[in-house]
């Protein structure tokens, strides 16, 4: 981010930016940056908080009025709702109860059936969730329906070396990742549908990775990929298959 600011400003266009990792911005020294104390993934603090988001954006843009730089200022406040969420005694609960996840990864048809059932149970909540947001959904990066994704994932989990990439010019592990991510978005959007449950990313992830067949399958594929001889597979496994806060489920950590 800071690098882009250097290059664009050097080419003659003034820049200002949000900083989520202050230590990096201190070192890279872009012309103007507003350091915010928010979660990674939420540079404007919180969803559906227009007044707060606007303060952040305005503070960031106001740095363009400073006479000299580099400027690195701090936004002082935590996003609304964060303290309240931390104090919620009940926490978040998934709208549906699943059967215990399938733990044996050797039969693709059994996995397929279990995943199909999860998708079927989540489907009405996914639709509800979309409705809550006036039809908006972030599902769709794989351009594949959930019911078709689960066939691919189940087959890949059992016989990864026999599976072809369904996309042109795309490595099969990248295709797997794209479909797996997309299905996780579907699960997550369904999981946050209930208006009473303001689940955090972590609570939803704890459920997805521990209590669903999808989570078990993704862990199993990551365990396999970490021992792969293929550099693309290995790199993706190391960096971008399981979030750091769920790596205790995996064999290699």
């Amino acid at each position, binding site marked *: 981010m800071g690098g*882009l600011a250097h290059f664009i400003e050097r080419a003659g266009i003034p820049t200002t930016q949000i900083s989520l990792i202050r230590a990096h911005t201190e070192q890279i020294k872009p*012309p103007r940056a507003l350091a915010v104390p928010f979660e990674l993934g939420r540079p404007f603090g919180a969803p559906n908080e227009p007044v707060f988001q606007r303060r952040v954006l305005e503070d960031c843009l106001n740095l363009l009025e400073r006479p000299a730089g580099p400027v690195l200022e701090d936004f002082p406040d935590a996003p609304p709702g*964060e303290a309240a969420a931390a104090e919620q005694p009940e926490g978040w609960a998934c709208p549906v109860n699943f059967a215990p996840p399938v733990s044996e990864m050797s039969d693709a048809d059994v996995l397929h059936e279990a995943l199909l059932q999860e998708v079927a149970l989540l489907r009405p909540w996914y639709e509800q969730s979309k409705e809550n947001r006036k039809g908006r959904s972030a599902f769709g990066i794989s351009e594949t329906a959930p019911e078709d994704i689960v066939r691919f994932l189940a087959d890949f989990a059992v016989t990864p070396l026999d599976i072809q990439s369904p996309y042109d010019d795309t490595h099969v592990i990248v295709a797997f990742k794209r479909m797996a991510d997309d299905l996780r978005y579907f699960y997550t959007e369904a999981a946050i549908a209930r208006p009473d449950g303001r689940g955090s990313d972590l609570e939803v992830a704890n459920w997805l990775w521990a209590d669903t067949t999808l989570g078990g399958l993704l862990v199993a594929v990551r365990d396999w990929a970490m021992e792969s001889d293929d550099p693309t597979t290995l790199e*993706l496994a190391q960096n971008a298959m399981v979030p750091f806060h769920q790596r205790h489920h995996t064999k290699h950590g």
Partner: protein
Amino acid sequence: MVHVREMPDHLRDALINQELPEYGDTPWVTPKPLNECRVALISTAGLHRREDPPFTPGAGDYRIIPDEYDMDALIMSHVSTNFDRSGFYQDVNTSFPIDRLRELADEGVIGSVAGRHFSFMGATPPTVMEPVARDLAKVLKADNVDAVALVPV
């Protein structure tokens, strides 16, 4: 929650203490007064239109987000699993504050909103990024952009 301060020590240290590229002295261009600036957003969240190809790691390419696009249809194909996405699911402005920017333009706090915005995916080596960013600066000038707000994820 994915606060840097709440990460396990070894992961936080690995993130914060990673080797960063050197960019040299900080450049400085004096902007127009803010209320005359035409402002574009540049995100590194891996956002794009539904019809655009998803991002792949390390390529350094970007996607164009026309200002007239239905921003509620944007999707995010960033490969990282380590940041919150639930905020984005609920409200695009959590990571791409397009509605807030338009409000500021309507109220005259900024001059106007640019006709095009841009999105990259995360960290790219400077050798790959520099020529791309130079070209992008030419595009921004042609779009009469006076200032850019860069937004990470």
